[in-house]
């Protein structure tokens, strides 16, 4: 099953997609109402706990950024203010030179995990969604990289559109990823090229921290990140998981 969280007519609802029709994919709210996908405000599709993100977890992307071998996965953490739903708007500050998307498979924890072995790791996964983990390289400093001003900006971590149940994703280690900017493909990869795969990430993380339901692991992005500008529409797509829309907007939209 796939489920979304949306705001509609004064309340937040869980919704499921119906078969696509003319004009898009209708959603059925838990209370029975059927609405168009552009009539709702899309929220991250689950109650998000700790946000764990991977840097340089695809070989080609690591090469693109001139990065050498790693002793352990490069993990950083994010806070809640950076989260955004499908079809949202992300601010590009005036004057920055390099803001880029990162299409990533997000792994959502469903059962508490502590000292979980690789063999049992996927039993702790509730499901998957698409993530677009924006970065603004202009703000990169060499302290506790990547610093939060680069990677934890308000509304710059997009999750959605749906949480897809783990049982509907038979092999999360073999999914194609693609990003389109204004309809043109700019990024492609496959989750089989992760340096540290999903079971190994869960084994590693749970060796020192308890993972709880709602915690989410953003598993890194392949190469092909390019600058995006105000007005661009960015679509991150993962095979069998979904297509996640976002629009880049200027400071003025935020009254700056």
């Amino acid at each position, binding site marked *: 099953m796939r489920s979304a969280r949306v705001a509609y007519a004064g309340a937040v609802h869980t919704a499921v997609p119906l078969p696509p029709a003319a004009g898009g994919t209708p959603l059925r709210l838990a209370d029975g109402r059927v609405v168009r996908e552009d009539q709702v405000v899309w929220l991250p599709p689950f109650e998000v706990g700790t946000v764990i993100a991977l840097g340089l977890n695809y070989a080609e992307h690591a090469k693109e950024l001139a990065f050498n071998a790693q002793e352990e996965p490069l993990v950083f953490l994010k806070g809640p203010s950076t989260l955004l739903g499908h079809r949202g708007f992300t601010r590009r500050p005036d004057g920055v030179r390099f803001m880029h998307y990162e299409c990533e498979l997000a792994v959502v924890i469903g059962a508490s995990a502590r000292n979980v072995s690789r063999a049992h790791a996927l039993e702790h996964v509730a499901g998957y969604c698409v993530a677009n983990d924006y970065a603004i390289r202009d703000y990169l400093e060499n302290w506790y990289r990547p610093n939060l001003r680069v990677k934890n900006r308000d509304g710059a971590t997009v999750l959605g559109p749906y949480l897809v149940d783990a049982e509907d994703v038979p092999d999360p280690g073999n999914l194609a990823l693609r990003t389109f900017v204004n309809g043109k493909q700019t990024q492609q990869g496959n989750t089989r090229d992760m340096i540290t795969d999903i079971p190994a990430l869960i084994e590693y993380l749970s060796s020192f921290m*308890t993972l709880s339901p709602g915690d989410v692991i953003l598993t890194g992005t392949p190469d092909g990140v390019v600058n995006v500008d105000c007005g661009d529409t960015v679509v991150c797509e993962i095979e069998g998981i979904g297509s996640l829309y976002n629009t880049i907007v200027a400071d003025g939209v935020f009254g700056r």
Partner: protein
Amino acid sequence: MSIVINDTVAMRVAPYRLSGTVYGTLLNHRSALAELGEAASQAPYKALPKAPVLYVKPRNTIAAPGAAVVVPQDSPELEIGGCVGLVIGRPACRLSPQEALQALAGFVIVNDISVPHTSFYRPSIRFKARDGFCPIGPHVTPRADVSDPDALTTRIFVDGVLQQTTSTADLIRPIATLLSDVTEFMTLFPGDVLAVGVARPVPRARAGQTVTVEVTGLGRLDNRLVEATP
């Protein structure tokens, strides 16, 4: 009025309900930057920090006063990074320094525990994000009860012996400036905690010892370090 935090009520006692989101600030105490000396300007850092450098203490790290903190087997000593935590009282986005303090509900003691590490370039999160590595408490002291947040004295004790005395007067970014600079790029929500930054060198402790962080007017926060059970 102050609210007692313990294992079961810590996150849900109005009006100072903690959200469970805790941020730490790197190198915001003059002593911390001074300890690095010229190295702070050299590779791999290449330049002093410009904007606030923050890190997340995730929800699994939060521990109650009195809770036992497990010392990992591969690190016999832990850093006891006691400091002042700012408890956010209303959504805080793009605060000016002049209005910043008004966004606070109050102050709380944070013990930002770490596995000792020497590089601040890209340290592993396992140094700071282990279960129980962020005791918070004993209560939130309302903002109105703290006359000068930029003159709070923090004392760290190990087994009752004073190890370090520092003051928020020695922060590179005083509290209002820190709040203003952080909320320029990320919103803080009610109940979020922003730790203002630990002083260095950081006192260390081992399993079997009791660590105490005391801040003038905010109370004291005691925790025991215990061995990992195989």
